[in-house]
């Protein structure tokens, strides 16, 4: 039973084209390349910070998940890890109430920056071919 999509994080289901697809087209000049690179760098730091934060939390829960899987259900240890998961989750929501929003923002930046980077790489490749 699906919840109301108030805070939907399912980006794959969206059919709206991201804004950067129209904004960043193929690079055709060195000036344009520089502008794209500057734009990339302008948001790269924010991206890295968000990425690291999500990565850290994901890693932590992945470790707890692995522990759960190793332990036989019904044991004390299993129960303890389950309680730990709930505790850590509540702690995370307290310290990072905007976690889902930040994660979504990071995913957006990831795709956007990857797009810009790819355009620059394509340009570099075309340039090196035409020069050789």
């Amino acid at each position, binding site marked *: 039973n699906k919840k109301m999509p*108030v805070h939907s994080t399912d980006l794959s289901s969206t059919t709206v084209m991201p804004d950067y697809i129209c904004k960043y087209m193929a690079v055709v000049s060195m000036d344009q390349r520089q502008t794209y690179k500057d734009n990339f760098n302008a948001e790269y730091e924010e991206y*890295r910070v968000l990425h690291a934060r999500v990565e850290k939390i994901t890693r932590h829960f992945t470790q*707890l*998940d692995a522990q*759960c899987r190793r332990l036989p259900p019904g044991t004390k240890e299993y129960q303890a890890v389950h309680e730990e*998961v*709930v505790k850590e*989750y509540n702690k*995370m929501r307290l310290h990072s109430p905007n976690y889902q929003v930040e994660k979504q923002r990071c995913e957006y930046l990831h795709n956007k920056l990857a797009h810009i*980077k790819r355009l620059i790489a394509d340009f570099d490749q075309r340039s090196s071919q035409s020069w050789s």
Partner: protein
Amino acid sequence: PVEGPKTGDANCVDEILKEMTQSWPPPLTAIHTPCKTEPSKFPFPSKDTQHASFP
């Protein structure tokens, strides 16, 4: 303000783990390549990666 699994019931741990262990891609690396130097007007051999692959 984020809707999440309600803690307390038996399935909530599974739900939390499912939500919190979604695969996360490694970070994008910065754009390193300074642009390749201008066309080969210069006679010096350029030290780019193509040469690095030679034994």
